[in-house]
């Protein structure tokens, strides 16, 4: 069976290589049959890698431990749910998973556009196939998930052996979110290949106009959305599993996921400049290139062991391959740009410095500054060691100090941008748009200060958050009021109608609203509290308004783990609120322990309780309780961001004017009903403004 997986993987590489070279040959010879054959080969890769993935999953689900990868990352006691997720638990499997997701994207892109853009698609096919060849080379020759376990037999010859049981999945990955988080993140990483392929293809093929942007806009938004979900789920997993009370540690692997997300965000904004005004063509192409290269750089950083990371898959010798690939991409992108730079000449004119265009320029600058700061902090230990010979640490305080002011300025621009008009904003319009939001947000700041918001950044965040929310509501309100008056409908219906007429714009505002919620949640961190105490049965500890009474400690066991559990009753103002059961699970297969945090979560605060285990000093059980304000806003904010993105992906519904009255006639021609001229909403294609 493993032969089938290996064969499918090797065949996938050969077919991808064919798609690459046949595509190039087709472009140069202009033979349409060759081009079509290359594109079909590009689609076939998906089915071949699907076979390989299917075979590997078959080994996991049938507990066949003759494959080294399966033996390393699964065991018989592992629930089926996690056997599926064990596929991406290690280097080999996660790279195979990457290839499969990339091939799935490639399949859909090539299939959906098979009868469109005949001049562009052969180039797109070649670029995607080139990326696939790289990853499939790794899958086949560098990190092969189908390597079998072998041992010398009685006659000295090597033969395949199967272990009776595997080492099991890392306990940290045995959490429901781990079944969703990595695929989401990988869907983000691999998804950015599509806009990259279209940008490079448009440049190489000198494809006219902004067509490539129209084609890839949705693909970019999809990749960005997956990346967002992946990042948020990763943060939630860290919060729920690691038991340190936080959700973001600025670990290199976390940073690696953030870098392409930031440049992707910059692209989603700056692309509007090109669509509406024909500006920033060079910038947009390079933003897409940079986003893709950051996906590869992030993978290089985290898998090569260049930088220290708490993530298990970080240490390997695969880095050199990524360095080579990154160098090739950089050279290809630069040569393509240099050779075709005249094609990217834009109509860069700025009517006024107080305009939507300017706000996008600053938005891009700030996003890129944030991206640079994160990259710089991640790489600085390596740079310092290289220059002065001694390694330094760059921890969370550095990233917070550098990035918080940048993020707050970005939040400010999130509020300002939508209030500025394209081309030019008059002073009157500025006063009219800014007066209420600015005034009310300052009032909110004063109230916040009076209520105890004394931490500077938290207070600024509160003021700016109120400002952005008000500007967003104002945007919805103004538009909806006009529609409500025109269509004689209520305001809520008008908001729905307004949103559906320009889903991209109003979906974007919903995304902004979600980001504000995330900012509010992060600002709550300034007021975190924690108490650690030895707590025996019958003893209590206090944190904030809560009192925790220890009622019991017991042991639970199943085939997969043994769990030590604390039973705590939560009191507030003398009244019992609920029971919490923080646990520590020991996994015999791997010999590791994991923390299961117990949380009492509300929009205002999380009571987050960790059973730390028995103190090594005196053997008493230790409870670590945290009071984390506003954390829930981050998770809800993430959900709102996703909903906003999905809304922005919907096609517009446009109002069409019915110019003459509509008469409904009976079979004999007599008028039985008559409607006055009105605006009727109709769904029209995929047009976005």
């Amino acid at each position: 069976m493993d032969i089938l997986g290996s064969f499918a993987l090797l065949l996938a590489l050969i077919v991808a290589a064919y798609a690459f070279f046949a595509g190039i040959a087709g472009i140069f010879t202009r033979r349409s049959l060759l081009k079509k054959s290359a594109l079909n080969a590009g689609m076939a890769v998906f089915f071949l890698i699907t076979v390989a993935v299917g075979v590997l999953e078959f080994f996991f689900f049938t507990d066949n431990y003759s494959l080294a990868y399966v033996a390393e990352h699964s065991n018989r006691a592992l629930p089926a749910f996690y056997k599926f997720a064990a596929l991406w638990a290690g280097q080999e499997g996660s790279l195979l998973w990457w290839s499969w997701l990339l091939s799935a994207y490639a399949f859909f892109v090539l299939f959906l556009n098979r009868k469109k853009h005949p001049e562009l698609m052969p180039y797109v096919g070649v670029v995607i196939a080139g990326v696939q060849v790289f990853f499939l080379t790794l899958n086949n020759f560098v990190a092969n998930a189908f390597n079998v376990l072998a041992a010398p037999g009685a006659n000295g010859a090597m033969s395949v052996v199967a272990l009776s049981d595997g080492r099991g999945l890392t306990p940290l990955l045995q959490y429901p979110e781990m079944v969703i988080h990595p695929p989401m993140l990988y869907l983000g990483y691999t998804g950015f290949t599509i806009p990259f392929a279209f940008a490079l293809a448009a440049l190489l093929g000198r494809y006219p106009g902004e067509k490539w942007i129209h084609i890839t806009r949705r693909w970019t938004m999809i990749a960005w959305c997956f990346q967002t979900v992946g990042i948020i789920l990763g943060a939630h997993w860290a919060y729920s599993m690691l038991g340190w009370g936080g959700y973001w540690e600025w670990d290199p692997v976390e940073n690696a996921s953030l870098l392409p997300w930031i440049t992707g965000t910059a692209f989603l904004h700056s692309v509007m400049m090109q669509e509406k005004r024909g500006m920033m063509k060079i910038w947009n192409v390079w933003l897409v290139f940079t986003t893709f290269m950051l996906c590869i750089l992030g993978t290089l950083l985290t898998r090569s062991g260049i930088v220290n990371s708490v993530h298990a898959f970080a240490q390997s010798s695969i880095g050199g391959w990524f360095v080579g690939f990154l160098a090739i991409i950089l050279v290809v992108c630069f040569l393509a740009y240099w050779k075709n730079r005249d094609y990217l000449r834009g109509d860069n004119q700025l009517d006024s410095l107080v305009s939507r265009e300017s706000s996008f320029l600053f938005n891009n600058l700030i996003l890129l500054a944030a991206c640079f700061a994160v990259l710089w902090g991640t790489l600085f230990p390596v740079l310092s060691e290289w220059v002065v010979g001694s390694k330094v640490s760059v921890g969370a305080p550095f990233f917070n100090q550098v990035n918080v002011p940048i993020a707050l300025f970005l939040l400010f621009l999130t509020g300002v941008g939508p209030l500025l008009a394209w081309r030019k904003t008059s002073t009157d319009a500025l006063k009219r748009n800014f007066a209420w939001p600015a005034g009310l947000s300052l009032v909110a700041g004063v109230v916040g200060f009076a209520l105890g918001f004394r931490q500077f950044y938290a207070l600024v965040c509160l003021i700016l958050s109120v400002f952005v929310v008000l500007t967003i509501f104002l945007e919805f309100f103004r538009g909806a009021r006009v529609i409500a008056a025109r269509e004689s409908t209520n305001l809520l219906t008008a908001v729905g109608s307004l949103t559906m007429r320009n889903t991209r714009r109003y979906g974007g505002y919903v995304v902004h609203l979600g980001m504000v919620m995330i900012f509010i949640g992060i600002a709550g961190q300034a007021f975190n509290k924690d108490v650690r105490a030895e707590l025996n049965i019958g003893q209590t500890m206090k944190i904030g308004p809560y009192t925790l009474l220890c009622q019991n400690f017991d042991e639970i066991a199943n085939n997969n783990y043994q769990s030590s559990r604390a039973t705590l009753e939560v009191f507030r103002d003398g009244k019992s609120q609920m029971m919490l059961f923080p646990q520590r699970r020991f996994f015999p297969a791997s010999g590791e322990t994991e923390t299961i945090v117990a949380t009492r979560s509300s929009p205002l605060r999380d009571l987050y309780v960790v059973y730390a285990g028995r103190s090594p000093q005196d053997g008493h059980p230790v409870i670590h309780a945290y009071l984390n304000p506003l954390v829930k806003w981050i998770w809800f904010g993430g959900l709102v961001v996703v909903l906003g993105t999905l809304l922005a992906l919907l096609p517009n519904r446009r109002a069409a004017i019915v110019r003459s009255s509509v008469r409904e006639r009976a079979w004999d021609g007599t008028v039985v009903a008559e409607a006055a001229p009105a605006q009727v909403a109709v769904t029209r294609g995929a047009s976005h403004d």
Partner: protein
Amino acid sequence: MIRRGALGVCAILAAFGFACASTPARQLNEAQAARAKSLGLKVKCMCGGCNDPAGACFHSGGAFSGPCDMALSEIKLIDDRVAKGESDDAILKDFVAQYGPTVLVDPPKAGFDLTAWIVPVLVPLVGLFGVWEVARRWRQKHPAAAAASANASGISPEIIARVQHDIERDEP
């Protein structure tokens, strides 16, 4: 010569640290405790098994989710020296002398490592200048282009201004 001297200092500090770790911690007043807590978050736990600050060492995946012996000895050393009235700088310098600059959670603000702090501020400033310059150039292009197109089409500047005003009103 310098290296030999540094080794000597390290040996003395290590002996001092061990002595501190094996004696009971001094009582700290509220201000001292806050200082000690803050210092505990500025130095890393040097056990080699985690990347946590000593003051927030929790050893995920370990048998006990709390400060390990190494972190405890570092915290105790800090407590004792804070109780003696030593300055933050002096305490951190001795940690650096013992373990190297990697013991600090953040890069030192001196020497080459100062660039870690300066560059992320400098780059946005340079970028800001760049954006300003680009915006200025694009803005300079505008009147000439507008005039040229107006002349070419024979449309008066008033009408162009009115159309622009309409565009602004339609697309807020």
